[in-house]
């Protein structure tokens, strides 16, 4: 066989064979080139695509931890409900965007098609609630109250309901034990938004599309602990979605349980008494306005004096926290966020700000002592105090001659404090302030922790305000343009005020100083701030950060992380002054302005200390304040447009104490009936399996006896005082609560931006 075989073929055939060969190899080269392009050059891109192709995530939501009261009774837990959800992605695939399916669904669920449609639409700037604020890829709950019957109908006729599911799902339940609603303290949940998912992506607690997030209250503060970790199983699936392997699996970790210091039973009493006190106030005639008191809002805070723990915290108006569960309805949402309903979402215990009135006088007394005045000195208490041609009346009191500071507190004599404040104002330079003015009254207030958050473990606490020189300057600079435009010399009252504000609104005038000394004017405080201060007086001077959370208990019960009381400082008082204040405040309850409310109180066994307050609000009825403490507890109550401190709030506060101590109206103690005669120190018992023991609590049944709010007021408590200087409080201390982050649009706090400055002299 030769290497070059002889062929008898023509060159034509030979050339064509070469052509064929060249063609063949160019085809192969083409394939090779394309293969290199796909695999080596763009390989990574296709690898990702393949991954998306075959990995399916199945999210097992973590069971959210419970919020328990101090006995272990669940205030918030979970229950299994039949949730009917609609998948938007499925519906959108249909020709009519799923309209027909939703109409059928509405029929089965007994809802109107519009209601169903609204539930599944996506929220945007123009879409009002209800709308779906979560991920559009997540099934959207239409109702969580489906009956078994309805669920069966949907499941059996699956072909009529493509994209609709009916599954038993664990949903939040606010159980309301003992009829304690606790709404604002607990807060609420709503679905996580896309932005939140993006934001939390790289943190150690990323969100899943299905997550519900705490939006306010404890649900928000302790969200990280309550949420747990959802289980994510990544399955490798084949083209039909059949599972062919498990890529990665994280078991769902239930959230931790939070034990709080709230006592559900006391909470129920506090809520009831607050509501009753407001009802009673609405029956009272306000002689200033010749209308009944509106009593449009109120709050009561019960603290453990020695730890700052919150035993109960109630806010009015209130709402049913279960309204949020499974998506809120349009009606409910409108109700919760409207001005008409006066923003029930606000936790007024920490978010309402008002002038404190006379309960501020413990601070003024301290300021006076710091300024060098003897607590036991003798100070004139006339029925009025004049500065220039302006007369400042003794609001809550009458003339008592010359008395010491303790007595001035007891009888709430304004003129004593007017005098001291006026003198100090003069010492600081009066209308021409000295450099480095002492400003004892203002500095002391700040040392009491005012104008600053107390640090309670609830979100969006407001700070309040102390109207010192710096504030006046800032406020004037922010508002003078408006005042100068509006102001008119010799115009009507508002125009005149604006005129003066424009001229000298930045100056601390004598009237400002004296009004301030009795807790009126531009000062703003929150109930929790005052409760913290009075608890500090009770415990010897430690200002605790109030706290609701007591312990974080892991779901298996093995890890218990106790939340220890923290303090944010000491009151600027020494032991002696503390005792003097303590004695004076006890006097308030026995012989002073609150004595008529504490007849029969076993003062020898359970010494009661109290201070009443009635704060004026420009354009509104007076704010009622009542601050009180015993050795173990501190209770502060306030009612907006509710009248006087002792008149509106006093009896309710007493009733709360009575329930806790097991007292009857005559002062007899029955410890068996006492709800909480001593603060609970330990935690509820945790079983080895992680469950937390909870005693059964009976729903709170109030006494049938009518509230004894109609007794004749003693002369010392001047109910229905006519504010003689209408400008005394220029601000409208509305509830300046910060908005719940989402989805409720914030009820806008109408802060005092437009109001003219006070006229003081």
């Amino acid at each position, binding site marked *: 066989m030769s290497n070059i*075989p*002889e062929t*008898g073929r023509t060159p034509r*055939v030979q050339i064509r*064979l070469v052509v064929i060969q060249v063609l063949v190899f160019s085809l192969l080269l083409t*394939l090779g080139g394309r293969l290199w392009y796909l*695999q080596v050059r763009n390989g990574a891109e296709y690898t990702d695509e393949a*991954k998306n192709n075959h990995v399916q995530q199945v999210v097992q939501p973590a069971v959210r931890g419970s919020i328990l009261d101090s006995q272990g009774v669940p205030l918030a837990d979970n229950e299994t409900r039949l949730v009917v959800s609609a998948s938007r992605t499925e519906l959108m695939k249909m020709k009519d965007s799923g309209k027909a399916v939703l109409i059928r669904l509405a029929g089965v669920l007994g809802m109107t098609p519009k209601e169903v449609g609204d539930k599944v639409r996506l929220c945007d700037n123009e879409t009002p609630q209800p709308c779906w604020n979560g991920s559009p890829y997540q099934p959207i709950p239409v109702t969580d109250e489906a009956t078994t019957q309805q669920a069966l109908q949907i499941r059996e006729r699956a072909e009529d309901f493509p994209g609709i599911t009916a599954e038993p799902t664990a949903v939040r339940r606010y159980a309301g034990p003992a009829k304690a609603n606790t709404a604002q303290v607990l807060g609420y949940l709503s679905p996580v938004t896309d932005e939140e998912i993006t934001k939390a992506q790289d943190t150690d607690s990323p969100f899943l599309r299905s997550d519900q997030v705490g939006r306010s209250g404890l649900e928000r503060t302790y969200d990280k602990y309550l949420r747990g970790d959802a289980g994510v199983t990544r399955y490798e*699936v084949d083209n039909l979605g059949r599972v062919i392997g498990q890529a990665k699996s994280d078991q769902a970790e239930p959230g931790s349980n939070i034990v709080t210091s709230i006592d559900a039973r006391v909470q129920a009493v506090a809520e009831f008494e607050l509501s009753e006190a407001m009802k009673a106030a609405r029956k009272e005639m306000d002689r200033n306005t010749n209308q009944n008191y509106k009593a449009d809002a109120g709050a009561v805070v019960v603290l453990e004096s020695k730890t700052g723990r919150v035993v109960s915290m109630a806010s009015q108006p209130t709402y049913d926290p279960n309204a949020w569960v499974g998506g809120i309805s349009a009606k409910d949402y409108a109700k919760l966020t409207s001005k008409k309903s006066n923003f029930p979402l606000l936790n007024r215990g920490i978010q309402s700000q008002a002038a404190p009135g006379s309960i501020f006088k413990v601070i003024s007394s301290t300021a006076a002592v710091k300024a060098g005045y003897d607590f036991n000195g003798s100070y004139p208490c006339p029925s009025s105090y004049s500065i220039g041609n302006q007369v400042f009346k003794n609001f809550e009191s009458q003339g008592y001659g010359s008395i010491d500071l303790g007595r001035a507190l007891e009888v709430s004599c304004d003129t004593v404090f007017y005098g001291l404040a006026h003198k100090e104002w003069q010492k600081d330079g009066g209308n021409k302030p000295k450099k480095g003015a002492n400003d004892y009254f203002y500095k002391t207030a700040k040392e009491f922790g005012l104008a600053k958050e107390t640090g309670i473990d609830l979100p969006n606490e407001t700070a309040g305000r102390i109207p010192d020189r710096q504030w006046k300057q800032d406020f004037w600079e922010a508002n003078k343009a408006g005042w100068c435009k509006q102001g008119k010399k010799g115009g009507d009252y508002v125009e005149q005020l604006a005129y003066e504000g424009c001229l000298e609104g930045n100056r601390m005038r004598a009237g400002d100083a004296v009004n301030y000394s009795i807790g009126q004017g531009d000062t703003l405080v929150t109930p929790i701030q005052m409760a913290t201060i009075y608890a500090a007086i009770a415990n010897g001077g430690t200002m605790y950060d109030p706290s609701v959370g007591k312990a974080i208990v892991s779901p298996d019960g093995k890890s218990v992380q106790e939340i220890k009381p923290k303090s944010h400082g000491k009151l600027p008082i020494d032991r002696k002054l503390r005792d003097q204040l303590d004695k004076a405040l006890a006097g308030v309850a026995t012989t002073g302005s609150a004595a008529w409310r504490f007849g029969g109180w076993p003062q020898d066994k359970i010494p009661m200390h109290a201070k009443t307050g009635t704060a004026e609000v420009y354009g509104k009825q007076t704010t009622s304040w009542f601050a009180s403490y015993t050795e173990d507890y501190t209770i502060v109550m306030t009612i907006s447009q509710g009248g006087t401190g002792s008149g509106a709030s006093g009896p309710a506060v007493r009733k709360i104490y009575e329930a806790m101590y097991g007292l009857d109206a005559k002062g007899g103690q029955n410890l068996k009936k006492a709800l909480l005669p001593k603060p609970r120190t330990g935690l509820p018992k945790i079983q080895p399996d992680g469950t937390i023991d909870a005693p059964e609590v009976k729903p709170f049944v109030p006494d049938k006896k009518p509230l004894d709010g109609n007794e004749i007021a003693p002369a010392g408590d001047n109910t229905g005082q006519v504010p003689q200087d209408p400008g005394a409080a220029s601000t409208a201390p509305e509830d300046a609560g910060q908005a719940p982050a989402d989805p409720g649009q914030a009820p806008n706090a109408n802060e005092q931006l437009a109001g003219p400055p006070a006229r003081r002299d």
Partner: protein
Amino acid sequence: MAGTSGFSVSGYGPERGLWATLAARDSLARRLDWPLMFSALALSAVGSVLVWSATRNRTDLNTGDPYHFFFRHILNTGIGFALMIGTIWLGHRTLRGAVPVLYGVSVVLVLLVLTPLGATINGAHAWIVLGGGFTLQPSEFVKITIILGMAMMLAARVDAGDQVHPDHRTVAKSLGLAVVPIMIVMMMPDLGSVMVMAVIVLGVLLSSGASNRWIFGLVGAGVVGAVAVAALGVLDEYQINRFAAFANPELDPAGVGYNTNQARIAIGSGGLTGTGLFKGSQTTGQFVPEQQTDFVFTVAGEELGFLGAGLILLLLGVVLWRACRIARETTELYGTIVAAGIIAWFAFQSFENVGMTLGIMPVAGLPLPFVSYGGTSMFAVWIAVGLLQSIRVQKPMSA
């Protein structure tokens, strides 16, 4: 061996003494084209593993035995190998004498497909069900008989020394011989096979030395025919859709474009070295339809990567290179035409098959020679290898 029953070689050569004959002519073993043989064997072996990987989870197909298709592929290869030996032993010249019979049988078989005996698999009505799970795809054999038949007619007078090139009359007659089965296959319809046959005819005519007018005329007719077919709506919808999806695979990723899209993802995700055998998610997850047959190349792409898939192309290249050598080196036109026809067949079918998985050719139901699972196709390509070997070992007629 029911699969071969329709194309038995019995009656066309000595029935006994095959091995003895082979052993006796020890020069034969030395004259065989071993690179061709080894490449073809290697392709079949790789094919068996790829088919295995693609089907070991397909409980719907493999009746619960993950090795089912693996062994079947090896068995098919074995039968194919035996057919190759038989073909070598008979020799392509002997087969020339049998062309009328072979041609007749193959035409009858493709006609049978049009009868109720025929079956539709994957939209192509190209099969005869033989029972017992065996099927036959006669169009594969038609490819061979077209090559042999045309080669016989075109080379007869040239090899006899009467003509330098086949004259027009001969070319026309040979075309007529090819057109009959092609028309039948088109009626099935099995468009992929029709395309391959058309290319085979082109290759045969080219290598026969037929006048350029025939070549250009044929190419022109092919273009006009394609346009006419598209314009007159002769094609079924699925065939048009395949072309549409080829032009724009994103058109309908869940429907028509699905195959091409998933195939491309599978190959692309293989990268340089692949995910490893049995570890390809696209393959394991059965995302690529028809992966053991028409889309077998995607298994190689995904699990063996550029290196493995490239090796397959390289082996195909060796087969074609050896075939080209054989075509050029043989002294008679008959052998040249047969070899060229086989080259055209292998080259185009491989290009179309791999090209569609790579998204540069429209989807057509064609197996990858040696690699794809499928008995008839395997037998046909091994017979073709036998023909090539036979041409190679044949002593020149003039010698």
